[in-house]
């Protein structure tokens, strides 16, 4: 493995209708296998439900036909971060769950994140839900099995 060449944008906040909407764009090069965000922003309340939208522009992240699932990491300090081009190493955190969504390779995935979920978890489609452990911060990683296409992937969080 090698150092990531991702350009990871900050989580930018706007508040339409009184809701917080955070947006982060990550730009990958063809030397990257995984796309991941910075830790989620201060201000996201992990005690309440929230929703994450991944690959909002429906970009083709990888030209192969192999699915790109989404992994969830949780972190406990401001230094929480991922590194490496593939199978990322984590600082001050841990991989909590792989495949919280099954495929965002060419289409947006959206997941209800909830610490008190009342239905079964689901990793696909309109009803995707994730039982989310309480933590100060989260990171999403798109876990691609091969080199990515060069391009942008935009993430949004709404709470």
């Amino acid at each position: 493995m090698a150092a990531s060449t991702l350009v990871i944008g900050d989580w930018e906040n706007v508040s339409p209708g009184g809701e917080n909407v955070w947006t982060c764009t990550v730009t990958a090069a063809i030397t990257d296998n995984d796309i991941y965000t910075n830790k989620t922003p201060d201000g996201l309340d992990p005690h309440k439900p929230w929703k994450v939208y991944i690959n909002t522009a429906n970009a083709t992240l990888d030209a192969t036909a192999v699915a790109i699932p989404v992994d969830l990491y949780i972190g406990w300090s401001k230094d929480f971060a991922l590194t490496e081009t593939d199978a990322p190493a984590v600082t001050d955190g841990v991989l909590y769950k792989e495949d919280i969504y099954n495929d965002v390779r060419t289409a947006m995935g959206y997941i209800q994140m909830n610490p008190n979920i009342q239905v079964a978890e689901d990793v696909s489609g309109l009803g995707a839900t994730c039982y989310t452990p309480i933590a100060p911060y989260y990171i999403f990683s798109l876990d691609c099995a091969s080199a990515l296409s060069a391009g942008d992937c935009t993430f949004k969080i709404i709470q």
Partner: protein
Amino acid sequence: MAASTLTIGDWTPSSENGVTVWSSTVTATTADYDLYTKRTPKGLDPHKPWTLVLNSAATSVDGEAVPVDLYIGWVDSCALTLNNAPTITGGVLYKADIMDDVDAVCMAVLMHPSLTVAEDVAAGAAKCYVPVAPYYLINLDGNSALEAVSVTFKIMQ
């Protein structure tokens, strides 16, 4: 069995993004078979979900599988003793193997008093249906003499 030689650190709180993070480090010697915490801190609300992080530095503890047991306590003085098959004062072993193995890996468990999905004891979305109790104690249940190591536990709520 003999007296434990563990050095058990207090639960130290900090706050990150509105979440309380407690940390405790327990140091074992090669005379210990089990590695356990003090009771959880008073600020932990057992009526709400919390996250337990085990072996946050992914330290090698025993060289073989080390499952995790959950005890509950009902008095301020609840505590575990002995270097193997611990005896509890003021509490009871609620469940063995809430996690199947934390040797040389960091794992997180979603602890929830109103869990609505199946429990899971393995890495990759571990979940435990936690009974409401004033206090909890966490024990790494080694099957043989442990390495001389320090293991850090974290609670997030």
